């Protein structure tokens, strides 16, 4: 009987990503953001989450993917990491998927270093590859310093 875990999934630039639900606080629709001048380009802004001020990260930018179309209204995947809360901007939300922990494979060397740094591994699903993100590396202090 192998161990499973649940991943909250989403789409980003045509690829399929997932985050362990344990680290996901909530998923909400597009929120108005306040620009933060002088911040790195992958910080899109700040959102008001029921009184809590949360940083919204432009995940495409952080993963060095191509930028989203200008009129896109990204969704928010709010995650807990590095003793704080942050929101990842994504194109579309997917389902919560249960995966077999043992079936995870490491990310191939051909993938860029920036991406490999934040990915925990790859799951081979039917017709799709699911990339699991490491929440501690995608946001927070370590992400800031790695940039």
């Amino acid at each position: 009987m192998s161990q499973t875990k649940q991943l909250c999934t989403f789409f980003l630039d045509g690829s399929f990503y997932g985050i362990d639900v344990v680290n996901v606080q909530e998923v909400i629709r597009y929120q108005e953001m306040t620009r933060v001048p002088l911040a790195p380009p992958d910080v899109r802004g700040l959102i008001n989450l029921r009184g809590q001020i949360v940083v919204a990260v432009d995940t495409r930018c952080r993963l060095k993917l191509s930028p989203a179309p200008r009129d896109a209204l990204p969704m928010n995947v709010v995650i807990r990491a590095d003793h704080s809360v942050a929101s990842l901007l994504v194109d579309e939300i997917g389902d919560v998927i249960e995966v077999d922990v043992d079936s995870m494979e490491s990310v191939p060397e051909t993938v860029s270093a920036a991406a490999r740094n934040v990915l925990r591994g790859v799951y081979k699903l039917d017709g799709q590859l699911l990339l699991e993100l490491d929440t501690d590396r995608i946001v927070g202090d370590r992400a800031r310093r790695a940039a």
Partner: protein
Amino acid sequence: MSIDGDEIIQEFLVESAEILDELDRSFVALEADPGDHARIASIFRSVHSIKGASGFLGYSRLEGVAHAGEEVLSLVRDGKLPLSPAITTDLLAVVDGIRRLLGSIKENGVEGDGDFSELIGRLKAIRAGGAPRIEAPAKSVRSAPTPREPAAPTPAPERATTENRDHAVGESTVRVDVGLLDKLMNLVGELVLARNQILQVGVGKDAAFLGAAQRLNLITTELQEGVMKTRMRPIGSVWNKFPRVVRDLAVACGKDVRLELDGSETELDRTILEAIKDPLTHIVRNAVDHGIESPQTRTSRGKSAAGLLSLRAFHEGGKVNIEIADDGGGIDPERIRAKAVERGVVTAERATQMSDREVVNLVFAPGFSTAEKVSNISGRGVGMDVVKTNIERIGGSVELTSRAGHSTTLKIKIPLTLAIIPALIVHLGAERYAIPQVNLLELVRFENDQRKSRIEQIHGALVMRLRGNLLPLVHLRDVLGDDGIPAEDDAVNVVVVQADDRPFGLVVDGVSDTEEIVVKPLGPELKGINAFAGATIMGDGRVALILDVVGFAQRAGVVSQVRERTLALASKGTSFDANHDAAGALLLLEHGDDGRVALPLALVARLEEFQRSSIERAGPKRVVQYRGDILPLITLDEVLGARATSVASDDVLQVVVFSDGGKRVGLVVGRILDIVHDAIPVKSTGARAGVRGTAVIQGRVTELLDVQAALRVHEAAFS
């Protein structure tokens, strides 16, 4: 039996800890006044009660240590044993021993393996009547035959009453878990935000709604104030440990230090208190270890053998001010200069340009240490960069001034509270930013058509004249960029703020109301953007960033500009050495048709304009009524000799006002041309009366006015 569940033991631990803190203070006070019978009796009772409770709870080691101390104390109390410094040290060791044992009980539930037999042995020996063995301090070898008189710190009078008040406390207070208070504080913060939202929504609604919203407003404000008060604690709670710290350190260093505490009741938010506890301790230890000289050195310098260390705390200008001053050896600017250059903290060139006041503050630079020896008493001689960082992290500032050979003073300023602050909301395009009111000086607004005349340039840097002083200007847009929405063009709004006593003006698109905002921290992603102090949620639910004025000033490069100007104004003083480069700011004037004159801006009190018609005569001299006073006027012609001029007499005269002692004199000049900063090499010195030398400024030969001579002319004329 689990410790956590057992309330009796918890109570015992908490109350004993308080008694021990009180004992620290009492012993030190007793040393200063050994005849205070009431105090001895009170100390005895405290130790006795700890002994009793320990026995009751079965802590035999604790009981043993307390008992040994109690026996010695009973002899002191009955007058059979005079209190000597060595005995006091041993009794304080009893206090420390008890503290260690209590700590062990708190952590592990048991007393632990600490061995106190040596201490108990010493105390038994004292009791048996032998002279107590005098312990030489761990380090230095003293050639003096007798041990030096150790510190005799005298507490400031108000502390005695604080102690009494603590004992009388009893029924009028309750103990509350700090976590619960923090939770209440958060809730109140949320309530303030909700209230702001309701007030916004309430605009234009019916009277019933408005009435209820108003009541909510009043209640929230009072609740906020009340909860904030619960977070406030007097600085004395940190401060009260110092008498013991200073005493022990002074004994170990062989110095004699008198400690004065003023303003112990000054209240601070508890988080701030927590943050400054260590920096303050470090500074105090530094003063004793490195600041105050040994009694021999002091007397050889004509000072009293006992050094004075004074701590003052008070509220001023929305901040808590803490001043720590010692009358020790001070800081030698030359030594600092040399060390700074040696350590690569500044270049040699920069070091010579800096004033003594600036140089002395270099001790805060990282990687700097001037202690000849590393002492394990305060670590490296100066860990001041850490002190400064810790203080700045909570929004405070620290400044050091010193008179070499005489004194050193540290001035710390910290904001009163971090959580809810009044702030001015400004606009940039469609974006809003909050500027904390504590940094706000004033607002200036003028119509767009005055833009050219009011905003001037000095080598590309924007300035504005504000009541005779020059104010550097920064466009908020230039530093923060914008959201693409262009500025409205009808008026210029300048928000005059100050970063650490250095004022500058922020040009914004528009200014809104002042609001109470809840400061929310920015989080790790945005750490390091020094321009922002946090963020807040506005009444309409949108997020706005809060400007950190000091950080913003640094980023905009304003601080260094203003610094140079302030330096020139503050430190150059009135002597203007004509043989050296004419550094500092110079005011450039026209004299006659083609002459140019420059004088040090540092000496100028104000720049004014008068109508020719307002000049009156007082005897042979011309005067003008100015600020309720009579201002005598002299002209450049009188000082330098007449100059051919074909310019018709203007109706408006430019007057440079000097302050000479308490008197003011106005110098009527031609056109004010510019203000220059660069170091100007003086080409030749004083060829004629009234002139200190000549220099080439902006490509033109310019005479440097001898201001002292000018003022003498005035005096001569009036006498």
